[in-house]
């Protein structure tokens, strides 16, 4: 239906609209739900203008007294109106809402009152109550939608009715509505939860009008919390209710509602502490669904949990009452720890709650990278660590009380910036030891904690923990890490793999003795997971670890590259042959790294692979393009001569790749990378016959679809060409395509656009290239091009001195990546396969400004008088001043 012309003929539409509501209402509940969705889809198109009688038709059914029908109507209304909760304010939307309010608000209010009355008359009829409560839930949801955008006049006038009834529903309990199910929330819970949302909406948005009602709701919700049990089915209700309190207690004008010491104590005791307890469901998740448990606990995807809500309430209360709250909780922590001490094996959950409480009380700000960054000063974290955390981790058995072990490890992890370094050092062997724990959560946390500790920064930007301090533990660390990968449930554990990568990076050359065994284990792992790659993070860190092994080893012993090739090529071949799409970009990156390690001529094993890399099918996948270009660049750098002599027939294929890449707006820069490498490294005679064709291709693209990115790359290329082949050659090749073309390029592209070039190296290339055009190109001195000489010099000085022009024409803001065919494995750059920035100008020119001065000086000695006269005619004063600065710095003068 979207945006397309009406495909359903108008009479059918009308017929459907006329019949669908009665049809829905006479259907059984399941079908009713589907038809109700259908109505809202049609409504999205036609309501309200083209379906004017829908509302009246619906409202009329309220009178029917048949709650099966009424619920159908309410459900449809809900699916029609719920978009008011997220759409932007607009005249169109508000006109619709106004229309809906006029027709719907009063009948809904009457229905609400009537339903509540029916609830009390049928208080003993379970099946009637179920239907009525379903209606109330839907009514409460409709209330939310209709009140979302702004407070409607009608609801402001009828606030008393709604809020009084909502309030009494919150306090209502009826045995008949209680469910036996422990997991699934019952109707009563769902209704109360929605009422909490409604109250929270009013408290947030319509505070001024809602103020008189708020204290009552605070009390009701708080009593609700005190009387609600621990079962999972209450979770949503409880966390909604606590979040409501948390949002209210932060408001300065409601502070007084919480101020009283007894109130605070009772909130802490009856609301917060019970909801921090480790429940049976948590225990189950810890053991049987550890991945989910870890995600919730470590990565903070716990937004809707009770613990999290309780934690937010602690933080909210601390805004005004940090001292008293800390005091109250300290007492609790102590008593819970004493309980634990009396009988650890029975009371270990008390200690878990104590640790959780300390954590939530102490943490004021937290990041993944640094753990806690601001702590409550009233809590002594180190003391708690030494007295209550370390003893657990020191105990002989790594498998005893796994939850407490996990708590302890997590404590180290998040308070790593608060606990002094010496304590961290004491903990490291304990953590390494716990890599052997059977519990997935425990050994995962141990790996994660080690990884986090290894990334901590000390003074002067080195790691806090040094390789030397780790020396005694290298062997056991590596052994335990790799052994942990063999524990059940952890064969592709990304935390462990990341810890391996981080350990390599920290330990550097001290891992060399273990490399043979390490690389064997990594290749085996690689082989195993390549059968069915499923954990992208795990895979990424695995390749990073491989790259690190190569780098660290070859740095010390370059010849070792051969042994890596020996170990890896077999697996790589298999990956390429089986076309394991996820891994191919990684393989190319590792191969680039290996190839760049070679100091001499390119080995024949690589040359054998070369033709395969040019196969078009490989270039179809966007994820392959960057690493493949990088690999081809490595080939050109190391083996340009070999290619020219032994594989000259492959040069057209290479250029074919270039041609394909520059045709695409998304990949043209990659095409230029390749082209630049060809120009820089290939012997000139081997590409001679193709040069003109290359320029023609570039011009075609320039004519068809010019983008800023393309121009920038194009500018870098022509200047590199100029450096490599000389300014005269550049002028000649342009003019051979079409007379006076060179002048046009100067005037229309180089001079106006050069300011857009970005990047140190790129700017340097352009500066040196333009200097050559100015000083080593005779036609610039004595043809019609001469008039462009000064503007070009001015543009060059601009490139040196003015800020980069990073504006992008309007029409380019939303370039579609039109040539990305659908979703494909994105390219993940391996940090440790990184390439140093290559500067093709290199030492030839150190300071391009001085180089310009010297070149001008040379030019002026060749034709005395010309240069100063050209300068004085049209160079602007500011540019001239800069230029004089360069001349002075180079200690030359112009003749």
């Amino acid at each position, binding site marked *: 239906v979207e945006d397309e012309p009406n495909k359903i003929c108008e009479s059918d539409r009308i017929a459907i609209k006329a019949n669908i509501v009665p049809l829905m209402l006479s259907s059984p509940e399941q079908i009713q739900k589907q038809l109700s969705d259908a109505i809202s889809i049609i409504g999205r198109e036609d309501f309200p203008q083209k379906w004017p009688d829908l509302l009246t038709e619906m409202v009329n059914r309220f009178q029917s007294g048949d709650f099966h029908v009424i619920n159908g109507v309410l459900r449809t209304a809900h699916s029609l109106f719920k978009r008011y909760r997220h759409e*932007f304010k607009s*005249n169109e939307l*508000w006109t619709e809402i*106004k229309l809906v309010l006029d027709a719907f608000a009063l009948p809904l209010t009457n229905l609400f009152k009537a339903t509540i009355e029916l609830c009390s008359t049928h208080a003993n009829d379970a099946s009637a109550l179920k239907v009525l409560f379903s209606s109330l839930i839907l009514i409460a949801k409709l209330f939310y939608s209709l009140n979302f955008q*702004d407070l*409607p006049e009608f609801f402001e006038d009828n606030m008393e009715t709604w809020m009084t009834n909502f309030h009494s529903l919150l306090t209502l309990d009826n045995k008949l509505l209680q469910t036996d199910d422990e997991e699934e929330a019952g109707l009563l819970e769902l209704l109360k939860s929605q009422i909490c949302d409604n109250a929270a909406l009013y408290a947030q948005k319509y505070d001024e009008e809602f103020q008189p009602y708020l204290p009552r709701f605070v009390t009701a919700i708080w009593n609700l919390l005190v009387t609600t049990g621990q079962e999972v089915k209450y979770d949503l209700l409880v966390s909604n209710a606590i979040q409501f309190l948390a949002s209210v207690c932060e408001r300065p004008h409601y502070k007084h509602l919480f101020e009283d010491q007894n109130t605070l104590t009772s909130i802490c005791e009856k609301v917060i502490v019970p909801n921090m307890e480790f429940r049976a469901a948590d225990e189950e998740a810890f053991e049987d669904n550890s991945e989910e448990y870890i995600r919730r606990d470590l990565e903070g995807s716990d937004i809707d949990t009770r613990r999290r809500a309780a934690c937010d309430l602690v933080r909210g209360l601390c805004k005004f009452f940090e001292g008293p709250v800390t005091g109250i909780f300290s007492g609790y922590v102590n008593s819970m720890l004493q309980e634990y001490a009396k009988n650890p094996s029975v009371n270990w959950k008390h200690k878990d709650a104590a640790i959780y409480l300390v954590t939530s009380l102490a943490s004021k700000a937290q*990041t993944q*990278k640094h753990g806690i960054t601001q702590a409550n000063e009233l809590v002594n974290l180190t003391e708690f660590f030494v007295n209550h955390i370390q003893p657990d981790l020191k105990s002989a058995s790594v498998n005893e009380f796994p939850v407490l072990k996990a708590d302890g490890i997590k404590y180290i992890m998040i308070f790593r910036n608060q606990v002094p370094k010496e304590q961290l050092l004491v903990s490291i062997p304990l953590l390494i030891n716990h890599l052997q724990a059977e519990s997935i959560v425990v050994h995962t946390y141990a790996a994660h904690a080690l990884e986090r500790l290894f990334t901590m920064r000390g003074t002067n930007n080195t790691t806090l923990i040094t390789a030397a301090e780790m020396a005694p533990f290298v062997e056991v660390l590596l052994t335990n890490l790799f052994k942990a990968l063999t524990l059940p449930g952890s064969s592709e554990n990304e935390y462990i793999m990341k810890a391996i990568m981080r350990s390599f990076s920290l330990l550097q050359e001290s891992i060399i003795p273990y490399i043979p065994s390490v690389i064997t284990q990594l290749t085996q792992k690689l082989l195993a997971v390549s059968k069915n790659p499923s954990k992208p993070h795990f895979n990424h860190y695995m390749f990073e670890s491989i790259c690190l092994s190569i780098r660290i080893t070859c740095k010390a012993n370059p010849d070792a590259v051969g042994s890596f090739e020996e170990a890896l090529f077999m697996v790589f071949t298999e990956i390429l042959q089986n076309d394991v799409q996820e891994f191919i970009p990684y393989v190319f990156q590792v191969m680039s790294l290996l190839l760049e390690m070679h100091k001499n001529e390119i080995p024949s094993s690589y040359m054998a692979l070369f033709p395969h890399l040019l196969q078009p099918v490989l270039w179809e996948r966007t994820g392959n393009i960057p690493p493949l270009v990088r690999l081809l660049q490595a080939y050109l750098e190391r083996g340009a001569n070999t290619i020219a002599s032994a594989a000259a027939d492959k040069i057209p294929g290479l250029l074919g790749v270039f041609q394909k890449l520059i045709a695409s707006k998304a990949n043209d820069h990659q095409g230029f990378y390749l082209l630049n490498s060809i120009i820089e490294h290939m012997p000139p005679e081997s590409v001679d016959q193709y040069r003109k064709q290359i320029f023609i291709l570039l011009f075609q693209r320039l004519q068809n679809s010019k983008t800023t990115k393309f121009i920038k790359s194009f500018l870098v290329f022509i200047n590199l060409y100029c450096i490599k082949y000389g300014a005269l050659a550049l002028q000649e090749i342009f003019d051979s395509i079409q007379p006076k073309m060179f002048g046009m390029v100067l005037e229309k592209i180089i001079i106006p656009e050069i300011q857009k070039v970005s990047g140190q190296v790129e700017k340097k290339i352009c500066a040196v290239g333009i200097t050559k055009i100015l000083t080593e190109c005779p036609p610039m001195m004595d043809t019609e091009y001469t008039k462009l000489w000064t503007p070009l010099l001015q543009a060059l000085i601009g490139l040196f001195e003015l800020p980069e022009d990073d504006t992008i024409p309007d029409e380019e803001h939303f370039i579609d990546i039109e040539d990305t065919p659908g979703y494909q494995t994105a390219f993940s750059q391996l940090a440790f396969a990184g390439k140093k920035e290559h500067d093709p100008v290199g030492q030839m020119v150190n300071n391009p400004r001085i180089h310009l001065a010297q070149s001008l000086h040379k030019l002026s000695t060749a034709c005395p008088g010309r240069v100063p006269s050209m300068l004085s005619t049209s160079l602007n004063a500011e540019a001239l001043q800069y230029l004089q600065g360069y001349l002075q710095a180079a200690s030359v003068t112009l003749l």
Partner: protein
Amino acid sequence: NDHSERMKKFKNKGKDAAALRRQRAEVNIELRKAKKDEQILKRRSISFSLMDESLSPGEDKRNEIIQLSLEEIVQAVNGSNTELQLQATQATRRMLSRQKDPPINQIIELGIIPRLVEFLTRADNAPLQFEAAWALTNIASGTSDHTKAVVEGGAIPAFISLLSSPHMHISEQSVWALGNIAGDGPLYRDALINCNVIPPLLALVVLLLPHLLLHEDLTPPLFQVGFLRNITWTLSNLCRNKNPYPPLDAVKKMLPVLICLMEHEDKDIISDSCWAISYLTDGSNDRIQIVVDTGILPRLVELMASPELIVMTPALRAIGNVVTGTDEQTQAAIDAGVLAVLPCLLRHVKPTIQKEAAWTLSNIAAGPCRQIQQLITCGLLPPLVELLDKGDFKAQKEAVWAVANFTTGGTVEQVVELVQSGVLKPLLNLLLAKDSKTILVILDTISNLFLAAEKLGETERLCLLVEELDGLEKIEALQTHDNNMVYRAALTIIEKYFSGE
């Protein structure tokens, strides 16, 4: 579309600041109750027994109050007996002056309006003129249909000529009636203006405020502050409403008088004249310019600080409107001292004042960076941050816009200062707001902050700060928001700044 428009502004930073200014009328549809602090459009004259006597000096006090049925009224009004005409008209007026549910419809249905209008012309019978005027005033105070009935009965010219009645109370009643007609909307407002209502109204002001014409020796014949209030209110209704705006020459005639009225000591008169100015400035920049040119801005700013809510509210509105104008017009408001007054208003107990003040601030923040600098120098950041943290939701929304505009037009240094003033924490907290637009504006602001951080090479620090303040998890949660633009904006931020290692 709206969004891509904004994206454009955001990418071409600071290039289109004028377009960032948000005029008052974003949405013409209101769901809310008519605001209590708006000026009243129409007023009914209610009769209390005591006031009744004193307000109707012409009434024959010897007569007992006579109850008449509707039929009797029709008969008497249409009859030729003057005494009975007066009685019936008075009875009609009494019914219409009842506090609860005046029977306006029934009276209209009697078809006596043309006759009542005719009574207005009875210069020989002042009591009858007065009663008819009063009755018609109250009919005109009803719905648009009610006002229409009065106008179609030919009341406009009759009332206008009564403005120059020798009887003060009759001309006052006419002013009132005309005010009700003008308040109905632009159509009748212009009908009045076309019938030349303005000169006699202004003449009345001169009569009541003779020092206007420097005839200081001339003491006001009958100084009645109530009368002047009515005139001011009627004038303000003549300035009110857009689509179309009141004609320019009419505005130019009224302005000098309105400005004099703003100097009066009566707070109701000041209030209504401020309302008038606020209507005149609620429009295009050339309308604003006319007001700015009168040099009234310093007085308006002074009145913004008034302890009287009824004065402060319209003065703030007027200034708020002025700063939706050009950079120069905004500068005029700044030069008039608006920035010194705003901190107090941002901290005002009334949420609507907070909101208007924040809206005003948001439009100043949409200006060039030199104006943003003045805003910093005058100490506006602390109250802005406070408001963002603790203000009423309506005000918080406006404060979010202020921050957004600030980060769009401000220099990197200014943005740094904004962040240092602690804006981030309350801003990120508002990502929980139940309003999609506000969330989107915050996400755009966060992007702006990151652009500034990139320029300083401080991206990583900002990332940490956002995460520390629980912003990251809120942005992450927004990736499942039902509004497409919100979720895309959240996704973009996560991908761009928080996806790497």
